[in-house]
């Protein structure tokens, strides 16, 4: 909020914040692109007989995305478990 030019006015730009935000977007885009690619292979039938997604393809895509998220969760939990087993006892 700015009051007589005081406050917001003298904000400075921290390049590290910009870099962090950029990285965040990059990770998101990367995950999304891999999801698009994997689910295309899993769900879209060639040869392309029609321009629209069939009912079957649409349902497959929805499940594919859900399962892709679930895969991250399963793997994340597994890695955490592995990490704990390898950690030295306190």
């Amino acid at each position, binding site marked *: 909020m700015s009051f007589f030019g005081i406050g917001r006015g003298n904000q400075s730009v921290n390049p590290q914040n910009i870099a962090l935000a950029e990285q965040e977007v990059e990770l998101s885009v990367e995950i999304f692109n891999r999801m698009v690619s994997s689910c295309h292979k899993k769900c879209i039938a060639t040869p392309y007989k029609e321009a629209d997604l069939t009912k079957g393809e649409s349902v497959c895509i929805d499940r594919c*995305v859900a399962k892709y998220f679930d895969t991250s969760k399963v793997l994340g939990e597994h890695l955490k478990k592995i990490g704990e087993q390898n950690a030295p006892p306190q």
Partner: protein
Amino acid sequence: MEYLNQKEQEQFSQVLEAKQIKDYTNMMFNLSQGCFNDCILDFTSSKIGEKESACLTRCADKFFKHTQRVGQRFAENNAKLMQ
């Protein structure tokens, strides 16, 4: 991106715009190459036939609809994770 102040947001939106152009270009390259690989199977001629041309446009349409649908589900699943 709540940690960005107004000035940083302005600068970031410029960075983002450049990135979006690059991502869009990459998507179009993937689209072209993917549809070429899937639709162009005959090399007895150097001209694209009617069937191949129709396959290419269907492939492109489907590619966009697929990407869009994945995008919607991606956003929904992400939103669920944030709760």
